[in-house]
């Protein structure tokens, strides 16, 4: 009987720029159902953080409640973490980010945690352009409570009990674009080639980076008739472009034919290279992105890839004009500089 993972690893595991192997980014053994899409997303996060050579202590993972929100236990075991109240991860993340702007924030949520109970929090974090990578592991059902339809279940999608969903599904990516998000992407847990560079680009993006990841629930929503099953998603997926993430100070090594690729420079000078671009696609055009999402939805297709990206933005700290130093490191003498400083300020305002 095994609930334990052997500690032996491949003796020749590659090391990243910090000298760590992938093992250093792993977490505890997952207790989710075997074959859960969420585990695959965890794997992609581990790989992305390994490849970006993030120092684990420089990253904080935050989550709410649900199968998706359990996953931070299963990756980045050496990083900071906060498992918050149902749907309240965005406010905890906002507080954490304001207190220490030096960390990389990774929010992990589900369709229930974001589109149902947490919708109010989600939209406000978004419109404030909080500097966070916000991943929704979207399976269209409440897996932890035995698979009821969630708010992102598509209209007409058949659940495991054989009943078609009568309600319209919320398109979180469309909503994010509408509300002014600066990085909006959609992917599929079963497409790591796309997901890994996408997570890397999202983490490099300064501002709210939203990734809606379709993540089949093998136990409750992988049946025929479901629009979030492995088979359905694979058959209906349509990519805007393939994504490459090129870290700062590296060079683009792959050239693509004119008009089939586009390079976007992020604020930290790293690059996002999109290739195999769909005809007439421009991810920096918000209106076009919105229209494309609608069109593909009308065709019954699932549009994936980086859908909208506005690289040069002002995040919450910029908007609030906070000091560059993390607030949690300010000492009492910084915050209360004393009577002399007060006198000086008063003097300046007389």
């Amino acid at each position: 009987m095994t609930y334990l993972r052997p500690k032996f690893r491949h003796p020749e595991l590659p090391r990243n720029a910090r000298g760590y192997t992938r093992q250093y980014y792993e977490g505890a053994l997952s207790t989710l159902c075997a074959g859960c899409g969420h585990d695959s997303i965890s794997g992609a996060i581990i790989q992305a953080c390994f490849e970006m050579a993030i120092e684990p202590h420089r990253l904080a993972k935050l989550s709410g409640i649900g199968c998706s929100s359990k996953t931070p236990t299963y990756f980045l075991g050496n990083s900071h973490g906060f498992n918050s109240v149902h749907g309240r991860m965005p406010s905890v993340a906002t507080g954490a980010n304001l207190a220490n702007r030096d960390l990389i924030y990774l929010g992990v949520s589900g369709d229930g945690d974001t589109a149902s109970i947490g919708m109010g929090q989600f939209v406000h974090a978004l419109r404030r352009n909080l500097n966070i990578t916000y991943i929704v592991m979207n399976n269209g059902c409440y897996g932890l409570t035995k698979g009821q339809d969630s708010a992102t279940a598509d209209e007409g999608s058949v659940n495991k009990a054989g009943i078609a969903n009568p309600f319209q599904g919320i398109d979180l990516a469309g909503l994010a674009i509408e509300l002014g998000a600066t990085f909006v992407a959609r992917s599929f847990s079963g497409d790591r080639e796309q997901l890994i560079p996408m997570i890397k680009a999202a983490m490099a993006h300064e501002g709210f980076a939203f990734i809606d990841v379709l993540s089949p629930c093998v136990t409750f929503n992988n049946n025929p008739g479901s629009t979030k099953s492995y088979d359905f998603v694979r058959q209906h997926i349509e990519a805007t472009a393939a994504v490459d993430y090129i870290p700062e100070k590296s060079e683009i090594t792959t050239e693509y034919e004119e008009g089939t690729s586009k390079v976007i420079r992020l604020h930290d000078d790293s690059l996002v290279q999109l290739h195999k671009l769909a005809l007439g696609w421009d991810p920096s055009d918000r209106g076009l992105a919105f229209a494309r999402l609608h069109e593909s939805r009308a065709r019954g297709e699932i549009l994936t890839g980086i859908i909208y990206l506005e690289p040069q933005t002002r995040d919450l700290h910029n908007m609030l004009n906070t000091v560059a130093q993390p607030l949690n490191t300010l000492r009492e003498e910084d915050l209360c500089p004393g009577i002399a400083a007060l006198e000086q300020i008063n003097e300046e305002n007389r």
Partner: protein
Amino acid sequence: MKPTNINDPEYFHKVVDCQYACPAHTPVPEYIRLIAAERYTEAYMVNWESNVFPGVLGRTCDRPCEPACRRGRVEEKPVAICRLKRVAADNKGEVRHLMPQVPFPSNGKKIALIGGGPASLTVARDLAPLGYEIHLYDDQRKGGGMMRSQIPAFRLPESVLDEEVNYILDLGIHTHFNRYVQSMGEVLAQDYDAIFVGTGAPRGGDLPKLPGRQEGAANIHIGIEWLASVAFEHTSKIGKKVIVLGGGNTAMDCCRTSMRLGGESVTVVVRSPFSDMKASPWEIEDAQREGIVIRNCMPPKEFVVEGGRLKGILFEHVEAVYDENGRRSLVPTGEPDEFIEADDVLVAIGQENAFPWIERDLGIEFGKWEMPVVDPVTFQSTNPRVFFGGDAAFGPKNVITAVAHGHQAAISIDQYCHKKDLHERPAPAVNLFHQKMGIHEWMYDSYVVEDPRYKVPHADNTVALKDRRFEVELGFAPETGFMEAQRCLNCDVQTVFTESLCIECDACVDICPTSCITFTHNGEENDLRTRLNAPANLLSQDLYVSHQLPTHRVMIKDENVCLHCGLCAERCPTAAWDMKKYLYQVTKTCKVWDAAGSVLETV
């Protein structure tokens, strides 16, 4: 790459590295699991069926399995396979009733076995139950061949050897001991249907041209001859200062035996560097533990004899120089020659085959180095009635190789006697057993322990060196044996992939501790090996490639460091991965023990 054909019995056989490396292909993980289950008797029988001398080999085997052990690739040391075999032999219950029972109805055929060593005895065991009348000739007074004459009793107690030799002789073998066969022509003239030659490599190397060899002859002994004369109690003493020339296992046995017969200052001198020594590392270690000094890069120049008596040897100092082809030459360093005193010298510089008793006009063709021309598959010589095996066939190897030869020669002899084509070899017997019992439960103990290799306890030198018969290795106690058995990775429990069930959820990729599994687009092997989740640089380890999946990718598993922990199969939501126990058995002339029977009961 083409999809892997897992129906080829050799594919999964190769994954069981230890079994694949074993010349006799003993199902190692199977008997190790039986040991862990305290089913020592069955563990012994699984061995006995395959390698005939579990007690002997559990002490003296050259262990080709251990360097191959997968455990040695994920951590420092392999499983102590050899010494676990001894645990089975030491703790077994009654086994005779499990072996073929005499008398066997005669099949009217008569076989002569020349030489009573492991190869001949294996042929005897495999043919006797079929009703062959078997006559075994040996010039010693007991059976066992080099296992008796060359392996000292402190490594292999006579009682252990006698027991296992007798299991075979008691199958109704007609023994002709103390009989040196002087003429193959005479044997051929008798009414034997076939003759098997298992006479070993009886001639020890010498240094006839080294100055002083003649004059000092009284105190210069040939290693294997000297060991035999100790074993048969013609020699019981040696001088206080002993030099052993040579760096093989015989040299190690010579020096350690000298320590027990009165040697006080025993020095092994090797002409080549340590790294080129032929002795097994553990034999070198054991010798050094007993206070034996080993010197290297010193070829002997002269036996120094004064007043008709050996005084010692003069050695030259050399260093090994390798040319661009890797060929070695020993070049003098220019240091002054060194004289080492000695009362006796043992020369253990290799062994040779010798067949002075085989006339050259009997249709038995001899080739290079006066070696018989022997078919490497059938072991038949150019005289169809005569077969060779063991060291006699292809030069000095080891016991387990001799046993493997014996099995194959027995098949050939049986086919020859029944006028069948010798090149139509029987296929191996293979079984794949489901192991699943529940979501997280397997019929085998899939948990991978992290314990480093356990050490076999040794008797203290003060006791061990007093008596040449005192067994110096004490063997694993059952408890330690269990812990060591748990280190086995169960490489025979195979990861079997069914692509039609796979939904490509990546669960197996994520859970695999050693990053063995990759889903990617197919390509040539060289290219694929660079595109996997972890480096696949060990080319001797196969890639398991599936048929194409719905996403046009293939599943590729690098077998190299798979821990056989079963997590891929536990994580697989559709049972596309399954763990199946693979039992591969070399087919023998007759079934003396059905390992598959014990496997079915193993839980």
